[in-house]
């Protein structure tokens, strides 16, 4: 998109998380969980078909988002925290606790962050 970014593979000063975070998480399972746990009722996800709901934000730019819940820095570990208990991060939030296990939250985080 940007000329300056062409052919420049140097990392950003603060990349969004380290590879060892979420190690062992199953991104493909995370993708299926998004469909199974009703996430698509509120969010659109590029590679999943659904009702194109706008209740929550679209989940296509999660790796680039700076904050979760409006203030929590977006790191892999914080994304798992957010998924497990959104109202602990933002008491106002309309996002419910969907009853995920920590493993499921890690799988979903891996998918949302574009991990293999």
């Amino acid at each position: 998109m940007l000329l300056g970014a062409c052919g420049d593979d140097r990392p950003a000063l603060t990349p969004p998380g380290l590879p060892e975070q979420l190690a062992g998480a199953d991104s493909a399972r995370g993708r299926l969980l998004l469909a199974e746990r009703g996430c698509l009722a509120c969010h659109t996800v590029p590679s999943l078909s659904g009702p194109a709901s706008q209740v929550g934000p679209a989940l296509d730019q999660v790796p680039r988002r700076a904050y979760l819940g409006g203030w929590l820095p977006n790191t892999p570990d914080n994304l798992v925290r957010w998924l497990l208990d959104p109202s602990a991060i933002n008491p106002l939030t309309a996002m419910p606790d969907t009853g995920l296990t920590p493993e499921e939250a890690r799988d979903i985080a891996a998918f949302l962050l574009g991990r293999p």
Partner: protein
Amino acid sequence: MKSWKVAGLTILACAATGAALGGAMVVFGWYDVSATGSHTVVVHEVLDVAQTRSVQRRAAGIQVPYLDEPRKAREGYGLFQKHCVQCHGAPGIAPDPYALGLNPAPAALVATARDRTAADIYWIIQQGIKMTGMPAWQYRLTDADIWNIVAFMRVLPTLSPADYRNWDKGNEQEPGLEAATPVPATRAGDPVAGRAALQQHLCATCHVIPGIAGARHHVGPSLAGIAQRPYIAGGVPNTPASMERWLRDPAAFKPGTAMPDLGLGAQEARDIAAFLYTLPPVD
């Protein structure tokens, strides 16, 4: 006929070479954008003429009010010390260290007052100048404030450094000068005014905003299709009234939010909300 053709082809070839060289400057990053690297004399001269003419053209219709009331210069002095001296300096006072690194260098306003017209100076303060570091004060100061600064700048070249420092001693400021009365919103939201106000409050540095140059960052959420979103701030029902309140005081809705209070006026918040509700769903 033949020589006419040769001349035409030569011009075309030159134009193509020029365009290719210009393109290469951009694509390969040859042009030095550092503030330590000065423009060449020719480039600087061209930019200076372009800027001067542009200001003159746009300021041509401005009616200059009577500026010689002492009260106006007195109020302008306070504003000048609060907002101008940091970058421009004043008689006997250097700009702050960071401002010394600005390129182009902030003008010495004694020279500006000597060279430029009242209307031009008013216009520059109000509108700012792209890519110079001179901000637009339109959304920060009232028209009366800006004219007060112009009124003080009329006095400025007549002051010695000591006169400047002590100028307020003999010109006591009226109390309450700094405390501007809040201006209520007086009309329905105007998306066109909102677009301009949004660009003047740096929304584009954090949000994706369809149609706004440079608005491609994900520090805050994308504002594409915000009209279709049922909630703002994660859980507040998205209505024009709540959007206005959110824009004016985000922390009141959501303590700890990364969204700052940008000092929006009531009308600006209403206009920006009106603009946001026109945004298409996809960037």
